[in-house]
């Protein structure tokens, strides 16, 4: 449909389409972020954002209710927040609490406010709330002893507790300690605690993705350098997590990324063999290939 050739002078690491599918943000080892307007089959470069001092690993759009806002993270250890106002892009905040590369950044479901989650090679995750007065209040927790590779929020869920409705605020992290960990917000202590540490990989977990669909089950996909993808499921947001291998035999190469479609629970997996494969669950609960994306 749309193809953008060589927008950056070095490798591209991440792309993000905004909520309306009209704007694309890309980031690269060339230390920049680029913003494109996408109109039908056409695209136009709107701006190039300079500010990071190292390769930029991830970009993510905030929900449109927070304006045209973008978060990016880099090997330089920083998370930068960018905003477009009156057609002009500028850097509005710097989050500098990590001592090593920040590898992953995700905005929380918009119901929680402007809340950002970041994971770093320093082994920590930070949760930053951007408050009305512009201040940042980070919560920093030790997550994976030898580095956090990926973070992802659970979709916003409301559960009934003592006859009142309460948010169940959770996220998942994947680390260089081969573990997948699920974390939960404790509203009393205003911090996050470990809900479950999931063992299923024998090498670095490169990406974790929590399915955004609100179904009776929670789905987390984790992909690893051990060439496997594990689907973790939990019924009714409670109880044990069940482990299913996406495919019983190993993939032909290291797996880098996992992404759930916004509805329909189709999983896209990409790996070192440069293939993007699609997967969906069948009625018996196991996973079937739904084809390969031709590039």
């Amino acid at each position, binding site marked *: 449909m749309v193809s953008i050739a060589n*927008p950056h002078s070095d490798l591209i690491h991440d792309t*993000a389409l905004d909520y309306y599918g009209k704007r694309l943000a890309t980031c690269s080892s060339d230390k920049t972020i680029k913003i494109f307007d996408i109109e039908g089959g056409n695209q136009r470069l709107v701006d190039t954002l300079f500010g990071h001092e190292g390769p930029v*690993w991830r970009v993510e759009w905030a929900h449109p209710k927070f304006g045209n806002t973008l978060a990016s993270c880099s090997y330089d250890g920083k998370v930068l927040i960018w905003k477009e106002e009156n057609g002009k892009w500028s850097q509005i905040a710097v989050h*500098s*609490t990590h001592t090593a590369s920040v590898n992953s950044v995700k905005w929380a479901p918009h119901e929680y406010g402007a809340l950002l989650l970041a994971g770093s090679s*320093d082994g920590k995750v930070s949760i930053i709330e951007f408050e009305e007065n512009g201040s940042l209040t980070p919560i920093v927790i030790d997550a994976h002893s030898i580095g956090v590779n990926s973070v992802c929020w659970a979709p916003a869920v409301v559960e009934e507790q003592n006859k009142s409705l309460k948010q169940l605020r959770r996220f998942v992290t994947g680390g*260089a300690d081969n573990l997948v960990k699920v974390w939960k917000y404790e509203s009393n202590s205003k911090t996050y605690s470990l809900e479950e540490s999931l063992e299923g990989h024998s090498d670095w977990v490169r990406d974790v993705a929590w399915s955004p669909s609100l179904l009776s089950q929670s789905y987390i996909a984790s992909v690893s350098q051990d060439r496997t993808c594990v689907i973790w499921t939990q019924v009714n947001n409670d109880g044990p997590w069940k482990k299913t291998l996406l495919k019983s035999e190993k993939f032909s190469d290291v797996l880098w990324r996992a992404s759930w479609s916004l509805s329909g629970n189709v999983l*896209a997996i*990409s790996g070192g063999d440069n293939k993007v494969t699609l997967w969906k669950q069948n009625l018996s609960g196991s996973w079937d290939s739904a084809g390969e994306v031709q590039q």
Partner: protein
Amino acid sequence: MVQVIEYPVTATFAWSKHKLPYLVSGTYSNAIDPNFSSESKLELWSINQINNKEPIFSLNSDSKFNDLDWSGDNVTIAGALDNGSIEIFKFNQENDSIQSNELIKNNRHTGPIRSITFNPRQDNLLLSGGEGIINSSNSAKTLPTINNIQNTTSEIFIYDLNDVDNPETLPMSPNMTMNRFETISSLAWNKSLSHVFSAAGNTSAVSIFDLKAKKEVINLNYINPTTGMKEIFSVVEWHPKNSTRIATATSNNISNPLNATANAGDSIYIWDLRNSNAPLQILSPQQFENNTIVGHTDGIQSLDWCAQDETFLLSSGRDNSIMLWNPDSGLPLTKYPKRNNWCFKSKFAPNFPEIFASASLDGKIEVQTLQNIPTISDEEENNSKQQESETDFWNNVSTEKVVEKATVFNFQAPSWYNNIIEPAATWSFGGKLVSISKDGKSININKPNLPGYFQDNKNLEE
């Protein structure tokens, strides 16, 4: 992860090749023990041990260590002892123990052994070098000689560990006619050719030996155009993949009679042996903004070329500093916090290059992460310190521990991060899939046709 683990020993060390590595340390011979003890210990440490004051295993050794190496299969540890012996240890991972203690029986060294290294491709081949006493039978030996240089000569031996118990078997020794070293300070096996190695001593040349030819095949030297003198090389290190690339570092010690005037700092030279007349890169001390010197101002003692990313080279020296360089571009990447004394060995953990260890005469082996970026709280601390009143400053000065951070000149991500081609595919609204092309340079937006899944997608209105 923990930024720094430190082990309270003045010792040389070797890493194991485990993903969560062990480190073995051996009491360093060139240091004076604060208690004037002559005791020598081999000690085992882990990077995730809780109490870092005590080793997880310890045993005594006959003599202090000049160097240690751990074999590629993680089983054997070889120690270069100051008394001229080579001690072989066996590591047992099941109970975290090290079994002592056999000295190589067919050892031919006659003086202190300075450098020892396992062949990276054949675990049974051990290369050792040091200085030997010239064995003269006449009585002149006992008389003081004017030129004491003639009392020692370098010794290099290659041992086959499968055949070292027979005192009658002679270790291999290469023919060293071109370069007259008095001692050997650094030895390195070529990382791809198991029959090639190099040596540096206290002379103005680095020797490359080929065991197939049984002799020295290349002699590298460099005349410093500023001083007009030949550089004195102290360290050699091979490129991790390219068999013709080598790094050599200088130690233009002011006390060295050959080079008394040349103390303008020390440099690392990157060579391609196919053109041994001119180095590819020279990593020299450079003046940066606010007049700080970046690079080694005195005696480089160790080099380590990262096995997983050949654009990382770690160096340390007598100027107490540790540097990370890009040997391809010649750019300094990071300057680590200074140690309190000479830093004689710095090595990446072989299978976990995110961390490295460095040994210094300041009494510690420090393990630190490649990255240690100052955070906002470090800056705030710095600012509040500068606004401190004089009284507050003097009240706090004795109790405050200054935590120095690394200075980053270039944020260059290592290859084991994501800075490789990532064919990342990300779903977005409307069943669109954005993916990065196979070469990592272009972007495609597709709408995969999955019957029953996306044909009736109405999420755009969400």
